[in-house]
């Protein structure tokens, strides 16, 4: 018999709808797996088994009474611990907020729950969503299920690792300079960083407000689509929320990519680890075979990403955290404290120049999207490192290598879908990202879905 923890949310949803699977049964299976494996993997900060079972029973009762809420009905979801959850501690992966209990749910959490989702627990993350490895001295380092000596990436490391290890069916993430896509790449799962403002960040703990996005993570592209369908939409209480029509992301998701014009910015071909370079070349061949027209393109403005990214992230985070940095600096871990303090030492002209650079980058992207439907690059230029005992240096080094690849879409507000690209020579997954114009999520999901049908990982991870 198929182990149902391997199934996607889309597959499970059909079983639940047709009453072949009960939400309670499904939730118990995932909770059992959490019990068995999470002491090692540390993907959850606050598991919520009692609440999850209560919600699963309510979902089951609704079904019995003919109240079907849609494809998320009865589906277990892990919530990153920087989304506010009413009456449930929201630590943001930080010692400072260990006892913070919000009095309301983030609207995106509320939407997922109203759609019938089951909240399994609050998931581990790199402290304050400001690091890229998944270390957390306060709640434990999350481990990569493909190799527990390795990092899962961050900051949404708990979400990505729990998906890979089947300790959840879906997960929420946030992405300020790569925090959905980077761990998705390292853990071999799918992650969508939406257009800035498409998903409300109201009730999501800020990192760098002009870059912060919230989005879905999953083991398949259709799962991202059903999750985004629920999370996206105008929030009048979020000043940067977009008031735009939300398309049906599942409709035509199986559309092919014949004639699709894909541009490969040469910027994304620099400084790649050999395995990334090899697998990216293979991926380009596969995409051509699938009917895409692929060409390299120069976008000189992308060279501004490192400066603009560092200055914007550290400056905005430093401003937000100033009070706590002044009064309780010892409660930050060294990598995060130094990252934020560096931002305190940048100056106003640098910050303005960083925002002028963003305008320039938007123009560079807009020009590219006149010629191409989609841009493509590796999600990050490196293969997944093993955890180092020098974890402060390691985090700052991973940021230094990866931010130039992940930050351009945060700086320009454009969406990006990270998909597994293949396995490196050690058998660990690596990822690539499809980048679209503003509000092109539907097209990104269509392209990603076709890519997924090539089975890029060639095998399923088996942790047990």
């Amino acid at each position, binding site marked *: 018999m198929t182990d149902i923890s391997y199934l996607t949310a889309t597959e499970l949803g059909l079983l639940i709808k047709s009453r072949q699977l009960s939400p309670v049964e499904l939730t118990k299976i995932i909770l059992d797996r959490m019990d068995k494996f999470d002491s090692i993997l540390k993907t959850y900060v606050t598991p919520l088994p009692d609440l999850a079972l209560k919600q699963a029973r309510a979902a089951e009762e609704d079904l019995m009474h003919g109240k079907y809420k849609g494809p998320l009905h009865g589906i277990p979801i892990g919530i990153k611990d920087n989304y506010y959850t009413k009456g449930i501690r929201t630590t943001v992966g930080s010692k400072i907020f260990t006892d913070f209990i919000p009095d309301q749910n983030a609207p995106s959490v509320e939407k997922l729950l109203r759609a019938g989702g089951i909240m399994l627990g609050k998931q581990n993350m790199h402290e304050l969503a400001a690091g890229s490895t998944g270390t957390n001295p306060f709640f434990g380092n999350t481990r990569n299920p493909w190799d527990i000596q390795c990092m899962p990436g961050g900051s949404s490391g708990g979400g990505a690792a729990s998906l890979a290890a089947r300790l959840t069916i879906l997960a929420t993430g946030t992405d300020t300079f790569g925090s959905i896509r980077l761990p998705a790449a390292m853990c071999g799962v799918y992650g969508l960083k939406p257009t*800035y*403002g498409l998903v409300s960040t109201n009730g999501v703990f800020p990192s760098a*407000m*002009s870059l912060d996005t919230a989005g879905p993570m999953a083991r398949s592209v259709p799962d991202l689509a059903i999750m985004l369908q629920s999370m996206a939409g105008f929030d009048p209480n979020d*000043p*940067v929320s*977009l008031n*735009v029509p939300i398309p049906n992301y599942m409709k035509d998701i199986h559309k092919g990519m014949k004639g699709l014009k894909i541009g490969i910015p040469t910027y994304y071909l620099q400084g790649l680890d050999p395995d990334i370079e090899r697998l990216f070349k293979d991926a380009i061949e596969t995409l051509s075979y699938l009917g895409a027209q692929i060409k390299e393109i120069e976008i*000189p*403005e992308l*060279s*501004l990403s*490192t*400066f603009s990214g*560092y*200055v914007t992230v*550290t400056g905005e985070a430093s401003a937000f955290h*100033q009070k706590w*940095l*002044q009064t309780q*600096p010892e409660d930050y871990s*060294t*990598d995060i*404290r*130094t*990252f934020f*303090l*560096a931002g*305190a*030492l*940048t100056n106003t002209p*640098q910050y*303005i*120049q960083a*925002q*002028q*650079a*963003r*305008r*320039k980058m*938007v123009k560079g992207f807009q020009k590219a999207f006149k010629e191409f439907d989609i841009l493509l690059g590796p999600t990050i230029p490196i293969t997944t490192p093993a955890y180092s005992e020098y974890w*402060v*240096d390691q985090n*700052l080094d991973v940021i*230094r290598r990866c931010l130039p690849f992940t930050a351009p879409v945060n700086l*320009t*507000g454009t969406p990006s879908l990270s998909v597994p690209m293949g396995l490196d020579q050690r058998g660990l997954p690596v990822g690539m990202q499809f980048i679209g114009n*503003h509000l092109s999520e539907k097209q990104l999901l269509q392209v990603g879905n076709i890519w997924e049908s090539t089975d890029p990982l060639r095998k399923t991870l088996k942790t047990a």
Partner: protein
Amino acid sequence: MDNANYIRYGLHLQGLSAYENDIPYIYNLLRTMKQAQISLDAFPHLNTEIPITIVDKELLL
């Protein structure tokens, strides 16, 4: 003023304390930003661009 003192003094002015062990990390981060700032030289008219800010709806649509 050497780099370490610049960092200590700059933080002190903002009511922030600098741990001695933090200083090399902060220095490296500032150096990374300074080196990356060279990329601006390729865009001599960058100063004429209107900075994107969080309330700028142009970014959003």
